[in-house]
């Protein structure tokens, strides 16, 4: 096992898949000569050249659409959005072209491609550059939405996403790129649509995806010290959603706290909370709690922005509420 960073894991995944399949290419702003705005693609242009690592103008709808067209034509593009904040410029292409093409063409044109980049709150970036947008994409039938939470998962899930024959939204976290973790020397892939139990527990289920995984694990330690055993269900993929893994855990613990750094209204988190409430109704000993970001645009001030997001303290408090310990 080698310890690498989150960004290195993503780079290894792309590098290995580009070496394996000549139809895989990377396109986006600053991905080639500049080595990537967050250095995820560092070295790939030098290795694969202009044909397969393509710098684009700042024109998200345009290059996203060209990527989708190239995928319709049989290539396997990875479109990098510098951040998901800018992906909304291209949302029409994802929603109306990529997600619907297979259906609309009566099964004739599939879209084998990946849209990836950093998503979610970062630090000191203000309202337009710091937000979690997975609920927008998770809403759309015809997409897969993958949100890795560890270095190991990031590599294995990205490799699977590149090999998938559907449009896959792959959401990284701007603050996760420097995270470290171990990955095996040998090749591995992680199937999409399968959740992972990151911590086994008996008293409460924490359902999490992406970056908040880390604070969920910190909360697990705090709770452990207080004699509470929390199970962590890491979704890995929010579309398709591994509902069975969630229900199995909740039926064991009888309590559930859903953690999602999206806004709370009509979100991935609120949907999962509803699913659990509906499908585990007879097993629940308390109402389902949702820890989301606050229902506000992200402020610049650091104290305020931290307050706007899920935190260890908020998770611990929610667990105590569902255990009637507050």
């Amino acid at each position, binding site marked *: 096992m080698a310890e690498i960073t989150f960004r290195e894991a993503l780079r290894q995944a792309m590098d290995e898949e580009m070496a394996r399949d000549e139809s895989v290419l990377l396109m986006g702003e600053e991905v080639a000569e500049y080595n990537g705005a967050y250095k995820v693609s560092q070295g790939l242009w030098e290795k694969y050249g202009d044909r397969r690592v393509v710098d684009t*103008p700042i024109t998200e709808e345009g*290059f996203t659409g*060209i990527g*989708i067209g*190239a995928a319709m034509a049989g290539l396997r593009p990875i479109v990098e959005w510098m951040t998901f904040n800018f992906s909304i410029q291209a949302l029409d292409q994802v929603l109306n*072209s990529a997600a619907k093409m297979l*259906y609309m*063409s009566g099964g004739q044109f599939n879209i084998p491609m990946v849209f990836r980049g950093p998503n979610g709150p970062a630090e000191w970036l203000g309202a337009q550059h710091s937000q979690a947008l997975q609920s927008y994409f998770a809403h759309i039938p015809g997409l897969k939405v993958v949100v890795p939470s560890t270095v190991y998962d990031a590599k294995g899930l990205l490799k699977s996403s590149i090999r998938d024959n559907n449009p896959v939204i792959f959401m990284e976290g701007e603050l996760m790129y420097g995270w470290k973790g171990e990955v095996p020397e040998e090749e591995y892939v992680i199937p999409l649509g399968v959740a992972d139990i990151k911590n086994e527990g008996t008293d409460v289920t924490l359902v999490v995806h992406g970056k908040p995984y880390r604070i969920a694990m910190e909360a697990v330690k705090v709770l452990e010290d207080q004699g509470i055993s929390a199970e962590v269900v890491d979704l890995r993929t929010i579309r398709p959603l591994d509902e069975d893994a969630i229900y199995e855990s909740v039926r064991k613990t009888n309590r559930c706290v859903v953690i999602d750094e999206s806004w709370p209204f009509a979100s991935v988190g609120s949907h999962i909370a509803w699913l659990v409430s509906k499908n585990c109704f007879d097993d629940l000993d308390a109402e389902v709690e949702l820890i989301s970001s606050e229902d506000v645009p992200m402020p610049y001030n650091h104290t305020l922005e931290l307050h706007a997001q899920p935190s260890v303290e908020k998770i611990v408090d929610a667990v105590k509420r569902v255990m009637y310990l507050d």
Partner: protein
Amino acid sequence: MTKRKNIKEYDRDFLLKLLKEMLLIRRFEELTGKMYRKRKIGGFCHLYIGQEATCVGTIATLDLSTDYVMTAYRDHGHAISCGMHPNSLMAELYGKATGCVGGKGGSMHFFDKEKHMLGGHGIVGAHLPLAAGFAFKINYNKETGVVLVYFGDGAIHQGAFHETLNMAKIWNLPIIFICENNLYGMGTAHSRVSSVTDFSVMANSYGMPGKKIDGMDVLNVYEETMEYVKLAKEEKTPSFMEIRTYRYQGHSMSDPAKYREKDELQEYKNKDSIEVLKSEMIENKLLTEDEYAAMDKECKEVSQQSVEFAENSDEPPLSALYEDILL
């Protein structure tokens, strides 16, 4: 200023093919309008009547084993020109399982992967980058084809148009952007909403060749397009054509087109592309009235058969609802 040659210099079979294709589109569309009014067809339905020379003249330049066609929602004519069978089109308009996309698309979403007809897209201007993606693939795989992408004058102010022209130029994509200027974006005259009325200057601003051509003479359309097809295939130069044409009916079936003058419609009908080619062929003894009548009869029959085919086809099963969402 026309690039077309004297009609006698063209192969007669080629001329007959152009004439018959235009006539088939005309008759198919007339019947489509009729069936729509009978409520056999629903939704948004945009007829191509009047514009036939555009798709027929442009697509006649292609080798559809290597080349591609993508268009917007006024797509019936392009589908026929790509060789899609009227049965599969009418069945699609009826929403039947035997339709070209199994009843999932309707009028605006005709696709045929084998015939390189890439749709049928409903968001104004948004298909331009998709078409450029095929041109990107042609270069990526070192192929020789060209992509023709069609859109109306309404699409030309969308960001996607400008974004795509820019990238087509910087990446040397073999694509021809074809603006079918029928003078009205839905009910709005293009002159009311455009900073320029000669759209070819927009191409020039992206450093690519552009021209405005007459779209009522199919041979002119053919020659003008061929010039740019060669540029695309031999020099990897993208280009832009504004084809001046006219739709005889409203924007869609629900539009009575009251924003136009009758004289304007008559002016275009006087140079109707089918009549122009037919008359010139007859004058030059390349066609007789009897031959034309037989051709017309056949086109009407083929169209009528497509209605019968659609009528007799099954609805898609309810299980189709959940098919083809993900592979």
